[in-house]
C-alpha cells in the first residue's frame, strides 16, 4: 500500500539527460578554458601595463628632474662662488636677481649668512629678492628676523648639501605652491670647511604640477606627486594638495595597503602595487618612482576598472557568445536527442499496448539504418511473430476445445448407457449388487451391465473396449446393446459372447475390440455360469473372507475376428460369497513412481477388508486404488462390479439395511 502511495521516482528522459551531460561537460571545458584565458590575459595585460606605466612614470620623472635641475644650477653656482670668494656678495646678488628675472618659476631668492660670518657687526638685514607683479624687487628681511631655525636654513646646514624644502604656499597667502631650494655656502678655512650660510631660491611648483597633471593614463587614471614626507604636492583633486598626505589618507580610510605604498614612496623606492581601494574608493594599480633630486615621489594611478576595461569587455563578449552557444547547443542537443528517442518513446508506448494484447497497434515505421531503425524493425518482426504465434495458439485451442467437447459427449454416451440406480433390485434379497465406473479424463471404453433374465437369474457383465474417445464409447454402446439383446434370447454366457463377437466383427473396419467377463447367477441355487472374452480374472471372496482369483476359461477379446468360440464354466456359490469383477483400470492403476497396483495388492486388499456390502466394498476398493495412485493422473477408466450371493432365502441385501 505504502509503495503504491509513493510518488514514482522522477524520470528524466534520455534527451534531457543527454543534454545535461553534454552541456555540463561543455560548460566545464568552457569554464576551464575561460578561466585560464582570463588569468593569462590578465597577467599579460598587467605586465604590459606595468611596463608602460613604468616608462610613462620614468619619462615624467626625468622631465621633472630636468626642470628642477635647471633651477638648481644658478643657486649652486652662486653658493660656490660666494664660498670660494670667486664672487663677492653684490655680484652674487646681481646673479640672483638676474636669475629671478630670467626664470619664470623662480619667485624669490636670497643670501643668508651666519651671524659670525660678519664678525664684529650687529645683525643686519638679510638680502632677499622677491617678484612682485612680475618685477624683481629687493626686499631685505629685517634684522630681527631670526632665520637660523628655519628649515631652509637648517636643513642644508646640518645635512651639508643642497636641500629642497617641503613645499609650502607662498608668503603672500596666494595659492602658488612653492618650495625652496637652499644651497649651503662653504668656506675653505685652512683645509676645514666652514658653513657660512645659504643661498636660497623659492620656486613655484606650478610647472611641476602641470607636468604631472598632463599624465593621465587610461580613462580615469592620474598621476600625483608627494613630497618626501608623503605630503601630496600634485593631485587632480586640488583639495588634497598640501592638506593631505598618503599617510593621512591611509589613516583616514584605515587603509594599511596605502600606508605601505606610502612608506615605499617616501623611502625612494620604485614599484607597482595594487590597492584594494579602501582609501581611493575603488581598486587601483599604482606605479611609483622617486624623483632623485628632491627625493619626492611620483605615483601613477590606474583604476583597475580602466586597466581591465577592455579585458572585461572582451570576456563579457566571450561569456555572452558562450551563453548564446550554450543555448543553441542546448536546443540542438534536445532536438537531436528527442529526434533519436522519439521512435523509442513511441515504441515504448506501443509496447505497452501490445503487452495489453492489442497486436494491431500502428507501429511507427523508422526507415533509418541505425540502431533505432534496427530496434524498430525488430519490433515489427516481433509483432509479426507474436501475431502468428497467437493465431496458431488460437487454432490449437479451438481444436482442443472441439476435442474436449467430443470427449465430453463420449463420456456422456458411455455413462448414459450404464445402469446407475442402486440398489437395482430392492425387492430381491438373495443377492446384492453394486457397480461403479469412474471414467478417466480421456474416455475409455469400460462398461458394465446387469439385468434379470427371469425371476431367478441375474446377468452381469464387465467389459473394456480397446481405444479411447468417441469410437470406443460407441463401440461400448454397441457391445452393451448387443449383449443385452442376445442375452435375453440365449442365456448362456459362452453363446452370448460368441454371438456378440460375430455381430461386432461385422463392419469393424476400425478393428476395435472389447474384453468381457459375463456371468449368469441363478440366485435360487447359487450357480454361477460365466464366460470370458480376454478379460481380467475376477476375485471371489468367500463368506469366510478368503479371496481368490476366479479361474476363467480361455477366450479372445471380441471384435476383430468373427466365429470365435467361448466356453462357459459353472461354479456353485455359497451364501455370503462375493464376486468382484473389474477392468484393468484397477490392477493397472499407477502410482507416482509408475508402479502398478497389481493383482497381489488387489487380492491383499480384498482379503484384508471387512466390508461385505457390495456398495461399501466397491467404494473401499476405489478408495484403495485412489490412495495408491496418489497424485498420479488416472490413465484409464476404472470399473468395479461387486456381486454378493446371500443364499436363496435371504430377504435383503446387507447393504440395504
Amino acid at each position, binding site marked *: 500500500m505504502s509503495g503504491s502511495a509513493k510518488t514514482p521516482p522522477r524520470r528524466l528522459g534520455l534527451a534531457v539527460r543527454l543534454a545535461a551531460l553534454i552541456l555540463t561537460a561543455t560548460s566545464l571545458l568552457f569554464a576551464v578554458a575561460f578561466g585560464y584565458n582570463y588569468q593569462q590575459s590578465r597577467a599579460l595585460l598587467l605586465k604590459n601595463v606595468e611596463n608602460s606605466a613604468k616608462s610613462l612614470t620614468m619619462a615624467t620623472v626625468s622631465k621633472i628632474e630636468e626642470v628642477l635641475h635647471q633651477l638648481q644650477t644658478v643657486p649652486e653656482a652662486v653658493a660656490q662662488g660666494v664660498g670660494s670668494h670667486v664672487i663677492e656678495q653684490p655680484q652674487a646678488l646681481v646673479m640672483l636677481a638676474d636669475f629671478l628675472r630670467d626664470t619664470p618659476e623662480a619667485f624669490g631668492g636670497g643670501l643668508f649668512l651666519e651671524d659670525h660670518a660678519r664678525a664684529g657687526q650687529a645683525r643686519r638685514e638679510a638680502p632677499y629678492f622677491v617678484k612682485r607683479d612680475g618685477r624683481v624687487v629687493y626686499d631685505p628681511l629685517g634684522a630681527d628676523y631670526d632665520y*637660523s*631655525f*628655519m*628649515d631652509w636654513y*637648517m*636643513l642644508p646646514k*646640518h*645635512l651639508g648639501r643642497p*636641500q629642497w*624644502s*617641503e613645499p*609650502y*604656499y607662498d608668503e603672500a*597667502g596666494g595659492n602658488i605652491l612653492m618650495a625652496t631650494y637652499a644651497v649651503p655656502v662653504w668656506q675653505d678655512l685652512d683645509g676645514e670647511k666652514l658653513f657660512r650660510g645659504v643661498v636660497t631660491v623659492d620656486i613655484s611648483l606650478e610647472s611641476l604640477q602641470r607636468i604631472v597633471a598632463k599624465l593621465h593614463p587610461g580613462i580615469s587614471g592620474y598621476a600625483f606627486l608627494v613630497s*618626501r*614626507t*608623503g*605630503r601630496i604636492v600634485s593631485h587632480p583633486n586640488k583639495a588634497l594638495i*598640501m*592638506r*593631505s*598626505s598618503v*599617510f*593621512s589618507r591611509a*589613516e*583616514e580610510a584605515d587603509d594599511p595597503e596605502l*600606508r605601505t605604498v*606610502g*612608506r615605499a*614612496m*617616501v*623611502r625612494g623606492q620604485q614599484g607597482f602595487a595594487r590597492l584594494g581601494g579602501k582609501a581611493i574608493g575603488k581598486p587601483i594599480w599604482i606605479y611609483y618612482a622617486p624623483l632623485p633630486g628632491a627625493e619626492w615621489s611620483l605615483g601613477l594611478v590606474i583604476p583597475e576598472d580602466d586597466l581591465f576595461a577592455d579585458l572585461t569587455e572582451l570576456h563579457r563578449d566571450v561569456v555572452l557568445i558562450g551563453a548564446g552557444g550554450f543555448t543553441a547547443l542546448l536546443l540542438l542537443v534536445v532536438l537531436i536527442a528527442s529526434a533519436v528517442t522519439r521512435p523509442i518513446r513511441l515504441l515504448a508506448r506501443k509496447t505497452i499496448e501490445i503487452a495489453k494484447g492489442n497486436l494491431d497497434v500502428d507501429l511507427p515505421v523508422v526507415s533509418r539504418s541505425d540502431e533505432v531503425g534496427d530496434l524498430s524493425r525488430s519490433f515489427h518482426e516481433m509483432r509479426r511473430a507474436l501475431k502468428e504465434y497467437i493465431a496458431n495458439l488460437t487454432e490449437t485451442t479451438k481444436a482442443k476445445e472441439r476435442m474436449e467437447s467430443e470427449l465430453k459427449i463420449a463420456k456422456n454416451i458411455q455413462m448414459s448407457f450404464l445402469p446407475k440406480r442402486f440398489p437395482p433390485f430392492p425387492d430381491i434379497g438373495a443377492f446384492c449388487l453394486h457397480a461403479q465406473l469412474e471414467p478417466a479424463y480421456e474416455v475409455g471404453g469400460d462398461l458394465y451391465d446387469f439385468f434379470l433374465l427371469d425371476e431367478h437369474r441375474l446377468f452381469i457383465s464387465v467389459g473394456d473396449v480397446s481405444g479411447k474417445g468417441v469410437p470406443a464409447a460407441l463401440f461400448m454402446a454397441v457391445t452393451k446393446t448387443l449383449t443385452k439383446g442376445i442375452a435375453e434370447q440365449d442365456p448362456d454366457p459362452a453363446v452370448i459372447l460368441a454371438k456378440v463377437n460375430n455381430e461386432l466383427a461385422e463392419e469393424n473396419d476400425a478393428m476395435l475390440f472389447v474384453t468381457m467377463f459375463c456371468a449368469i447367477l441363478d440366485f435360487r441355487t447359487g450357480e454361477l455360469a460365466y464366460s470370458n472374452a480376454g478379460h481380467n480374472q475376477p476375485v471371489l471372496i468367500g463368506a469366510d473372507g478368503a479371496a481368490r482369483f476366479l479361474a476363467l476359461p480361455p477366450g479372445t477379446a471380441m471384435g476383430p475376428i468373427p466365429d470365435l468360440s467361448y466356453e462357459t464354466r459353472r461354479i456353485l456359490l455359497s451364501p455370503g460369497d462375493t464376486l468382484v469383477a473389474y477392468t484393468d483400470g484397477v490392477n493397472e492403476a499407477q502410482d507416482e513412481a509408475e508402479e502398478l497396483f497389481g493383482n497381489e495388492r488387489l487380492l491383499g486388499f480384498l482379503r484384508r477388508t471387512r466390508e461385505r456390502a457390495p456398495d461399501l466394498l466397491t467404494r473401499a476398493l476405489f478408495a484403495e486404488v485412489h490412495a495408491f495412485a496418489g497424485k498420479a493422473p488416472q490413465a484409464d477408466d476404472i470399473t468395479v462390479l461387486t456381486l454378493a450371493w446371500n443364499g436363496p432365502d435371504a430377504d435383503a441385501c446387507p447393504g440395504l439395511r
Partner: protein
Amino acid sequence: MAGAMPDEMMSSRRATGWRAAAWAVCLLLFLAAPARAQTGTSDVSAPAAQPLQSVTFIPQWEPQAQFAGYYCALQRGFYRARGLDVTILRGGATRPPSRLLAEGKADFGSLFLGKAIIDRAAGVPLVNLAQMVRQGSLLLVAKKARGIRVPADLDGKRVSMWGDEFRIQPNMFFATHGIAVIPVPQGFTVDLFLRDGVDAASAMRYNEYHAILNSGWDPDELSVFPMAEAGLDFPEDGLYCLESFWRERPQAARAFVEASIEGWLWAFAHPREALDIAMSYVNGANLPTNRVHQQWMFDHIRAAMMPDGRPENVGRLDREAYETVARALLREGLIADVPAYEEFHVRLR
C-alpha cells in the same frame, strides 16, 4: 581579585562618563551663579541688556585642534553669554602671546607654564588664570634604525630641541641618565629629524609625533621617551592675562576662563562638531594640515587636559606642579627666583 579588576576598571570608566556629565551640569550652575551675583544683573541669559566687553585672545600657535575649546566657546556663544565679545587672534611664530599681551595687543593669551614663568621673570607681569593642559606631552623621539633604543643610546647624539623652556625637561632627563647630547635648535618642523640631520627630535605627542608617524614611520620603528613618564611632567597650555587686567577687570577674566572651560567641556562632549569648528579655523588659515592630524591632536589634548578624567579639575594649577616647574627653571638659571604660587596664579576654580 585579578579577575575582578577589568570589571572594576570598566565600571569606573563608565562612571567617569556619567560623573563628567554630572560635573559639567554642576559646573554650569556654579559658574552661572557668581556671574549673576557679580554682574548684578538679573539674568545672564539676557546679556543684551549689558553692552558686550570686547576682549582679544592670542593662542600661542597657529589655528589647530590644540585650541578647539576656545573656538567652540566662541562659536557656541559661551563668551557672548557671559558678556564678552571675544576676538581670537591668529597665533604663530611671529606673534608670541607674551609680546602681544605686553604690548596691549591682546587681553588673554595661551602660554606654556614654563614660558609664562620665564616671561614673568623677564618683566611681563603675567597672571595664570587657568592651567588648561595639566599633563606634559613633550617627547624625545628617535629612530631605532639609528641604534637608539634606550636613553643611554642618546649619549653623544645630535638632538634637536626648541627654545629654552622646551629644553628644561630634556636636559634634566639627560642629567638623570648621565648622558650628554649635542643640542641642535629645532625649527617648526621635524624635517631635519626625518632627513637624519639629527638623531633625535623633540615632539609634542599631539602634534609632531603624529607628523612623524604620518611621514611614513611606524611606532615600532621609533624610540619614544615621554618626559612626563620620566618624572618630568610639566603642565603646558595655560590662560594668562596681565596683572593689571586682572586687577581692573576681574569679572571679564573670570568670565573668559569660565566660558573657555565650558567650550572645552562642550568640545569633549561633541568631538565631531568640535573638530568641524576647529577645522573651519584651520582651513581659514590655509594651513597644510588635515582632519586626521587634527583629530589626533584633539584626542591627545583632551587626555592631557583631563589626566585624571575629572572635568571639575579642568583648569586647575596644582601648587606642586607649579613649584616643580619653577624650581627647575631656577636651577637651569632661566629665572632668578620663584614667584609665589599665590601671586602667579589666580585661583578661579
